[in-house]
């Protein structure tokens, strides 16, 4: 019997400090056992339990894309026990990864469609995975227009800044980067909160256009009315939830919203699905 609680052993290969407040770091892991990388075959939008031996496990969205080979990446905010300890670890340290877990963004549905990505703060991790995945030469033709609205408090709080700059230069993806406020006179991009920029830049709704939205609760709260105004149906608005988790496989009982387990039936749901469940997230 396969033990779904047993993590794959990994080694930290690289640590990148992402933000100016140093609270977000990206960890690049390589699998210790050849073969485990194939077993850890994932889709954009899934997550994994990062197992810090002696401290515990935390559910973290997979930030690398299935099209990137040889490693997996996660971007972790420093919050409590496990994430703070992880921030103090160094290249070469051994830990574990358990997964991939959860569903993913609905790639079958999204094929042939316009995709609007709306992200705020550090909830951009699985959105990065999705963008890299869609921009892969083998995949780009499977999607129509790609729009990305991504905001942070300040330029220094944006994740993956080099990649954002590179995507800005491409003509097969429309980037709308924004910050709440900026002192830098050379700032070339938008200034304003994500909901306001969404209202200005997001394409109007149609049957072939899906919005994926990930961010802090206040951003989601104010962006949803904007999408409603633009005519997005609730089955065309896709969200990813972050309930507290332990097992990640629908057994320990804590992450449910109604009869759905966020860890196993989610974390990705359409707003239409969420409307039918208790809002316990």
């Amino acid at each position, binding site marked *: 019997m396969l033990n779904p609680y047993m993590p794959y052993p990994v080694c930290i290969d690289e640590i990148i400090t992402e933000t100016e407040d140093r609270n977000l770091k990206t960890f690049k892991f390589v699998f210790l056992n050849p073969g485990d990388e194939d077993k850890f075959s994932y889709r954009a939008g899934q997550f994994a339990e990062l197992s810090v031996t002696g401290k*515990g496990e935390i559910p973290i969205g997979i930030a690398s894309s299935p099209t990137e080979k040889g490693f997996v990446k996660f971007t972790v905010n420093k919050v409590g026990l496990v994430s703070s300890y992880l921030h103090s670890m160094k290249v070469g340290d051994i830990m574990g990864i358990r997964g991939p877990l959860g569903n993913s963004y609905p790639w079958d549905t999204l094929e042939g469609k316009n995709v609007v990505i709306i992200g705020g703060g550090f909830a951009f991790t699985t959105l990065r995975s999705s963008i890299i995945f869609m921009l892969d030469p083998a995949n780009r033709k499977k999607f129509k227009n790609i729009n990305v609205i991504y905001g942070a408090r300040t330029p220094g709080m944006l994740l993956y800044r080099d990649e954002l700059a590179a995507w800005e230069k491409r003509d097969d993806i429309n980037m709308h980067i924004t910050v709440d406020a900026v002192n830098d006179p050379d700032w070339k991009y938008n200034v304003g909160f994500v909901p306001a920029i969404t209202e200005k830049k997001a394409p109007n709704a149609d049957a072939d256009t899906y919005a994926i939205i990930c961010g802090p609760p206040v951003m989601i709260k104010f962006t949803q009315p904007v999408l409603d105004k633009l005519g997005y149906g609730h089955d065309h608005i896709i969200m990813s939830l972050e309930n507290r988790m332990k097992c990640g496989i629908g057994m320990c*009982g804590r992450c449910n919203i109604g009869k759905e387990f966020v860890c196993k039936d989610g974390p990705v749901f359409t707003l239409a699905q969420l409307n039918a469940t208790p809002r316990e997230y």
Partner: protein
Amino acid sequence: MKVIKIDKNDWAGGIGKIQSSYRLYGPVKGDAFHDFKALEKGELPDLNFFNTRVSPKSVVYPQSEVMFEYSLDEKDAEHHILKDAAKDYSPKAVLGIRPCDAASFLLVKRNFDTPEYKDPYWIRSYEATTFVGYACNNPCSTCFCTTAGSGPFNEEGLDVLLVDEGDCYYAKVITSKGENLLNAAGWKTEADGGAPDKIAALGKEAGSKIGSSVATDQLKDKKTTELYEAPFWEDVSFACINCGTCTYLCPTCWCFDIQDENSGCSGVRMRNWDSCMFPLFTIHGTGHNPRGTKLQRVRQRFMHKLKYYVDKYDNGIQCVGCGRCIRSCPVNIDIRRVCDMMNSYDPKACACPAK
């Protein structure tokens, strides 16, 4: 179906023989209550009981269980890599489990044995266990098993059903696993042809003594969001002190936590029973808590048992009617009353504004 007659004079001897090939568990009397315990060599289960205070779920699913071991010492070749903890899945048997409690394992199995994932600890422990039931000739006043998918002589989940017949027990053989256990005990005398009828008659009599019931027929058709927003949760949860007694005693509550425990340079990853009654169960690292209030937690317990489970598995409620939570709740919260409120809830008929 085969029925074996066990003379009570052969009881202790048989149990002694079983213990050479099985680890035995049974009800044992403590200061004031019976509870299921591992029986020492020569120790007998005390069948002079209504039911135990805590359910026998720990026979399969211990309150605390080590899953993995690890070394944090960088001098060790495999430091920081989890290793399976040593486990004993040799045969075990629980003697004197009540039929409702045996049925509970079938409900819990739906959680741990799924098409996508198998919980190896629960499943292997469950498979190693032989369930020897003890029919309830005299149910208690808080039992409502007959309307909760079970019954005082219910056989589901059992390998053998023992029925007290004065100076002997009838042992109804339900599975080959059960037959093996009876053979190991040396209990082989078949009862006379009238035994099955006698068992049926006793069962009928016991069933008629069950004085309380729940109605569950409407639960499936209720809208989740309407039940969730029903005004009665305020009243239901008002007195609850979130002690967690109900979930701890319940045979069908399975929630758990996972923790790493270190001592020096080594440690274990273990799991422990947890409870939806505790705020820490769902609190996020940021401090946000989707079930931060007592009302939300009490509602979760009842909605899980009586609505989410019903919808998820289409196989009845997540409760076998053992009545433990009713008997032990310090503030008399009664699942029978809540179940009836949910089952008969009509949002349109309710005069109070939905919250």
